[in-house]
């Protein structure tokens, strides 16, 4: 059981009268890439936001690294969050900071880290996403793909054990989407981190997934590898891959 990084048990979440998550269950092991697939509005993003404590589920529990985070105090939750990286759909770079400052920001709590070590860490993660030359640029000077890469570099700087990707290829052209998908694979190999990738991009799912889960109306309806699901007997599941 030690290899299980995150576990979601029977979580439910509603917004007003709409129940977004009805009875979600999920498990992910160390070093595994799990792709969560589904139509827009099926509850994929809410699921990973519950996973990291940004949204509190009404029922069920979320276990991260063996610790139940539901109802955890903010300070305790923050300790667990240090092991989790989150790449937001919009990359969520801090507009008022340069790329370097964006990457240094999560390191602020690591007191007494020498300047040289911070510089090395920043350069290392930027190199791993192929953007060393953008170190002193502002986010507004970057393209969509570059922003995603910097966002990914920022999540990698604390060497997370679990990385959550919220639609990493949305809004990108097919070539850049492919590059980002391969980057996710590289990150998996280099950092041996578990990843949950929320997407509705079939190509991204094909490249990155070890295992896939399909969500419909807040419930997981199918689970398996990419090839298993693409040849599913269920017409609705198969329709995603056409």
């Amino acid at each position, binding site marked *: 059981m030690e290899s299980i990084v995150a576990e979601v048990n029977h979580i439910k979440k509603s917004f*007003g*009268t709409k129940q977004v998550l009805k009875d979600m269950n999920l498990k992910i092991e160390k070093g595994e890439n799990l792709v969560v697939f589904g139509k827009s509005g099926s509850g994929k993003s809410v699921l990973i*936001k519950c996973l*990291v404590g*940004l949204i509190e589920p009404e029922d069920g529990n979320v276990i991260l690294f063996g610790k139940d985070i539901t109802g955890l105090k*903010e300070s305790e939750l*923050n*300790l667990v*969050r*240090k092991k*989790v990286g*989150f790449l*937001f*759909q*919009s990359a*969520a*770079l*801090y*507009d008022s900071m340069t790329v370097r400052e964006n990457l240094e*920001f*999560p390191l*602020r*709590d690591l007191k007494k880290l020498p300047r040289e070590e911070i510089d090395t860490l920043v350069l290392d993660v930027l190199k791993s996403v192929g953007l060393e030359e953008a170190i002193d640029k502002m986010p507004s000077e970057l393209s969509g793909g570059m922003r995603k890469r910097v966002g990914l570099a920022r999540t990698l700087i*604390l060497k997370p054990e679990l990385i959550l990707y919220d639609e990493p290829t949305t809004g990108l052209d097919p070539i850049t989407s492919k590059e980002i998908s391969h980057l996710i694979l590289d990150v998996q190999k280099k950092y041996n981190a578990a990843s949950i990738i929320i997407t509705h991009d079939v190509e991204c799912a094909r490249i990155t997934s070890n295992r896939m889960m399909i969500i419909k109306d807040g419930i997981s309806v199918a689970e398996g590898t990419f090839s298993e699901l693409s040849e599913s007997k269920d017409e609705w599941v198969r329709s995603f891959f056409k």
Partner: protein
Amino acid sequence: MASDIETKTDSKEEKPAANIQSPYFKNVRGFFEGVTLGTRFSFRFFREIIRPRYEFNEFLKQSYLIGYRSLPLVAITGFIMGLVLTIQSRPTLAEFGAESWLPAMVAVSIVREMGPVITALIFAGKVGSGIGAEIASMKVTEQVDAMEVSGINPFKYIVVTRILAATIMLPLLVIAADAVSIYGSYIGVNLKGTVSFHLFFLQVFQALSFSDVFPATIKTFFFGFTVGLIGCYYGYNSNTGTEGVGKAANSSVVFGSLAIFIIDMIAVQLTSIFN
């Protein structure tokens, strides 16, 4: 601060349920909910301000952006305010042969009332709307969530630093605006006459007493706090996409300006009681 909470009603229920659904009741309920949330938000500010970690660098940065960057606008407005007030008041005072009271009259009205209130209103327009829009757009672009996920307290980093900077910077801006305004008045006096710099300022300082300066300065701390608090509240609680950014900026200015007048009214009453 209105909120849309839907209330399920059974068709068999009697009149009270229907009343709860009425727009009037919703507005009243929305108002009180808004007041409650606003109060909770300010309590959270006081709770977070005393707890480490202290975001001193961000506070300095915000002080620079909120204070120093507002100085040119405040100075220009202050100068025009002093100049215009002097030019407009001169004919009336001249009718009574009291032109020599012009420096004293202008100084007292600027220091007591016009300087703090007009500077605070400009501050609400520039800084309040800026804070509201900035924080709201940070929410829309998930920057606030990104901070939270990184284990950084966004309330402390974004809200506390801005409210504190607004509270401290506005009094300093008002002092600067008052000084420039009185200088504008000196220019205004000299447009139709000759009064030496020394004589003008001698009359100004003779007219001003501690009871003019002290309450006027104290109330500006409240103005600054309120403008910062309202801007942060609307920005931090906006959740309707890009439309929310505009709404947050607009509400910050409207309610910030309204709050300035309400605080000023209370401050004037209190000052007159103590005087």
